[in-house]
């Protein structure tokens, strides 16, 4: 099952309009300029190559999140993270106005940050800073740099970022819409991302590797592995269709270690199988594991333990990259010191675990893997069936029919009927499946596991449990038990 490759003519036509949406679009009008510039970037700073190397070496690379309003401050921040923080890969996290294409507000944020002497934006407004601002940033550091954001329509951002020397671009038409937006129509967003992927495909065709990373964790809140896996694989297929080759699929820590290990193994296996089944062979698939993406404990010592457990799973799961949280997570965007301390803590546990084999090969992991495989197949089959001959339509219809449904997401195009709850061992299960096309046997297993918890706690399975589970980790537990 595939989607159509955006024709070059349509791409160029769109491009003109896109570049006009903000003055800095003009500077990237010449596509070949970006290409030429990318060719000057040393291999050691190419994100796609770094990921491939990590895979070959069996290493896990560390990447923080970071972005501030002003160029010089942002450079200082990234330099600190690569030296003091020993980050292997650098981010440039985009501010939330830019994510909504509200460049004027972003501009005001830049001005105010100048006056305030501190960043009042929650990220780096790359579009406002334009191609040259981005080049300043990517040239100032020694590690590969990725744009991390949450932008439903990221076409202009992608144009500027790639011409600006970034060698990896996060996001996707589902993962950067449903959890990040309220009113963005599913098909529109998918088409906007086809543009981004086509642009990356253009670079690839011309010999420049650019890494693409669909956003795995979605809402970061009790997302069962099979839901995020399905989205990741769909976005992978859509990207490959447009010529992307270096793909990093993501998964956010759920908290139950064995479920997490099963999730990481199945993500790699299922993605590989699906891509091959769709006829792709020359892709380069790697994995990213996100340390706990839900609410964090306010206490920094407790936060370090959440970070450490994430590092443990990253190591045991043998992923190529892990995105690192900081001890400030619950409170606000971390200072550079707090950010570096998250990196150092993760580095410590990763390297202590690096040489160890951890026993994923056991009955529970096997059971969870089998379950996830069946669940993902059920969803993929349903999306394919809904697709006719266009995967984009399949996804649109799947959301409309609730065949795809992401827990706690703000999008009005998301049914929001799925209710996840932890079972008695903290694995994420489904209380309500909404319209998800899961068979009775699968749902019987979920229900049985939740019954076990219900018995253990002496209370029925209700929405209160969901609430308790959402708060649990921030209150020092995995499972939200009654007091």
């Amino acid at each position, binding site marked *: 099952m595939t989607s159509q490759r955006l024709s070059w003519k349509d791409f160029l036509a769109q491009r003109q309009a896109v570049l006009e949406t903000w003055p800095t679009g003009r500077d990237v009008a010449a596509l070949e300029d970006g290409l030429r510039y990318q060719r000057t970037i040393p291999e050691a700073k190419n994100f796609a190559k770094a990921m491939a190397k990590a895979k070959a070496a069996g290493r896990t690379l560390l990447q923080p999140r970071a972005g501030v309003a002003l160029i010089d401050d942002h450079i200082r921040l990234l330099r600190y993270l690569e030296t003091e923080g020993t980050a292997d890969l650098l981010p440039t996290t985009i501010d*939330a106005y830019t994510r*909504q294409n509200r460049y004027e507000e972003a501009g005001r944020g830049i001005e105010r940050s100048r006056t305030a002497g501190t*960043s009042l934006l929650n990220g780096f407004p790359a579009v406002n800073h334009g191609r040259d601002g981005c080049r300043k940033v990517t040239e100032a550091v020694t590690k590969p740099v990725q744009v991390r954001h949450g932008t439903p329509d990221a076409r202009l951002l992608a144009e500027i970022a790639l011409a600006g020397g970034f060698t990896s671009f996060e996001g996707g038409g589902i993962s950067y819409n449903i959890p990040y937006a309220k009113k963005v129509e599913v098909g529109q967003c998918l088409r906007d991302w086809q543009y981004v992927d086509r642009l990356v495909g253009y670079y690839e065709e011309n010999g420049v590797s650019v890494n693409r990373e669909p956003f795995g964790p979605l809402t970061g809140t009790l997302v069962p592995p099979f839901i995020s896996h399905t989205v990741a694989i769909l976005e992978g297929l859509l990207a490959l269709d447009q010529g992307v080759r270096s793909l990093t699929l993501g998964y956010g820590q759920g908290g139950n270690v064995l479920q997490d290990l099963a999730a990481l193994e199945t993500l790699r296996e299922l993605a590989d199988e699906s891509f091959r089944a769709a006829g792709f062979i020359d892709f380069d698939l790697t994995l990213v594991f996100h340390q706990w993406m*839900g609410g964090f404990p306010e206490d920094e010592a407790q936060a370090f333990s959440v970070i450490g457990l994430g590092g443990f799973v990253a190591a045991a799961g043998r992923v190529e990259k892990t995105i690192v949280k900081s001890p400030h997570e*619950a409170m606000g965007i971390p200072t550079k010191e707090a950010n570096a301390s998250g990196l150092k803590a993760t580095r410590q546990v990763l390297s202590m675990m690096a040489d160890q084999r951890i026993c994923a090969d056991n009955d529970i992991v096997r059971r969870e893997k089998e379950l996830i495989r069946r669940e993902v197949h059920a969803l993929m089959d349903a999306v394919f069936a809904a697709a006719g001959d266009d995967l984009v339509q399949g996804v649109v219809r799947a959301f409309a029919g609730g065949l795809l449904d992401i827990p*706690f997401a*703000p999008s009005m195009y998301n049914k929001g009927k799925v209710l996840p709850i932890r079972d008695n061992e903290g694995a994420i299960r489904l209380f309500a499946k909404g319209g998800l096309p899961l068979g009775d046997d699968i749902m019987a297993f979920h229900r049985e596991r939740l019954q076990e918890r219900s018995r253990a706690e002496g209370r029925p399975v209700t929405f209160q449990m969901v609430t308790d589970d959402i708060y649990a980790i921030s209150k020092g537990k995995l499972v939200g038990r009654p007091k």
Partner: protein
Amino acid sequence: MDAPRIVLGVIGADCHSVGNTILDAFFTEAGFHVVNLGVMVSQEEFLDAAVESDAAAVLVSSLYGHGLIDCEGLRQKAVERGLERLVLYAGGNLVVGKTPFEEVERKFKALGFDRVFPPQVELAEVARLLRADIEARRN
């Protein structure tokens, strides 16, 4: 007495929907009549909803850090629209970066908010204060 009417929402370009879901469930359960606008709500939408539903209070969430920019002028606009007695609360991760709460509170009170809350606030306590504040404004 009727259930007090309140408007909930997450202001600006902020997409954090989890806390909002919980606030909705909590205040409904606690006996309030909740009009929940969800995420990415503009100042105008907040005030429109307050007017339409004749709400006694508006509870603004901001998690993503742009709270100060997004909330500026809300109180003035409320007054302009004749909502002099509106109780205005703000809560969440209101500014960029870990900041002493006293500082955050000062800044938002200066913007005209009646009360300001950190993310770890005990919601039962908020409900108590809210009832009292609404009662006080009525008189």
